[in-house]
């Protein structure tokens, strides 16, 4: 593990460039290329701007930033004391919307999700903590929009909703497996996987889910699946995995079904 860099800024817009500078240095030191550095800058900028404008809403406060390298990933954590707010629950704006249908909101969070490889949110000890991860080695064959995206948020104490999107295939499965493995190691063993954004799942993707399920069960937890698209649900039915996983039409129903 690399050394941790830390910075605390006052929750004012004029400190946003300082936060951006801070992450730029960390990202460059981690060996990221200029495009990836830009992604980190923008993600931190948008996250801090949101916390200042909506979280603190003009009240005084501070934001703590922390960057470190974990294996092949740059981990950026942003912690604040503003009221509990999970940015991952915000409805995503639609990039295909016409000019008239654009209201202007939600784009900051959208960029954070698009530009980082993973985003996690939690609320602990009265603090919002957003963790954003950028992989240090990107595969040359992948396009930003095609990446499988993982997001995690604690919807109630001890229950984590993992949002997946894109294609869960042999290319993305190793990352999926590692990310879900990290969740289990962190003690997040009650998981509801929101599959609504998953377009395709291959055997490697299934294997990653089963491995996570097994590890979670071993620790007294469970992995439930919610909101599968019909074509993905069909794969689960074909191979009989509906016997393994609890599968629910929605995250709320999974929550109720498990009695969590």
């Amino acid at each position: 593990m690399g050394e941790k860099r830390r910075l605390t800024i006052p929750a004012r817009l004029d400190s946003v460039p300082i936060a951006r500078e801070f992450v730029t240095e960390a990202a460059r030191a981690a060996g990221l290329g200029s495009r990836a550095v830009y992604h980190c800058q923008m993600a931190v900028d948008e996250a801090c701007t949101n916390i200042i404008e909506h979280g603190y809403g003009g009240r005084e406060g501070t934001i703590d930033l922390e960057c470190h390298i974990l294996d092949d990933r740059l981990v950026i954590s942003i912690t604040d004391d503003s009221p509990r707010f999970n940015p991952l629950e915000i409805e995503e704006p639609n990039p295909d919307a016409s000019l008239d249908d654009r209201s202007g909101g939600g784009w900051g969070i959208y960029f954070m999700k698009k530009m980082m490889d993973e985003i996690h949110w939690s609320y602990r000890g009265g603090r919002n903590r957003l963790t954003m991860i950028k992989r240090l080695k990107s595969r040359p064959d992948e396009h930003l929009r095609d990446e499988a995206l993982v997001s995690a948020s604690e919807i109630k104490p001890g229950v984590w909703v993992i949002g997946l999107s894109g294609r869960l295939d042999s290319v993305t499965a190793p990352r999926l497996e590692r990310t879900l493995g990290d969740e289990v190691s962190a003690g997040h063993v009650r998981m509801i996987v929101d599959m609504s954004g998953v377009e395709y799942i291959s055997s490697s993707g299934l294997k990653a889910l089963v491995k996570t399920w097994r590890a979670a069960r071993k620790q007294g937890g469970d992995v439930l699946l919610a909101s599968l698209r019909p074509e993905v649900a069909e794969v689960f039915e074909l191979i009989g995995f509906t016997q393994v996983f609890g599968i629910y039409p929605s995250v709320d129903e999974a929550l109720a079904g498990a009695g969590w």
Partner: protein
Amino acid sequence: MEITVSELKRVTLFVIQGRVDSTNASELGEALKSQLSSGRYRLVIDLSGVEYMSSAGLREMVTALKTARKNGGDVRLANPSDRVREVLELAGLDSIFEIYPSQVEAVGSF
């Protein structure tokens, strides 16, 4: 961020240099609005000198675009860097704004 505004015969040209973010996007918004409210609805924004733009900057450009189009005008963009172009593309704005490779072409398009 520095904004240079030139009122040409048929078009107002904005040349922006530096970084556009939540700390200064409102200045850009005000500059665009002051042209629109004086009845000049044909605007070109030269982005070639913009090294960074966050969603706050995009929001101001979209707001100006709505007003301009409602009044029969347009906001056209010139020569965004690769980084800024990627941001425009992710937001789907590359198909909403007319984007030209150079300032001359953007101005000449009106």
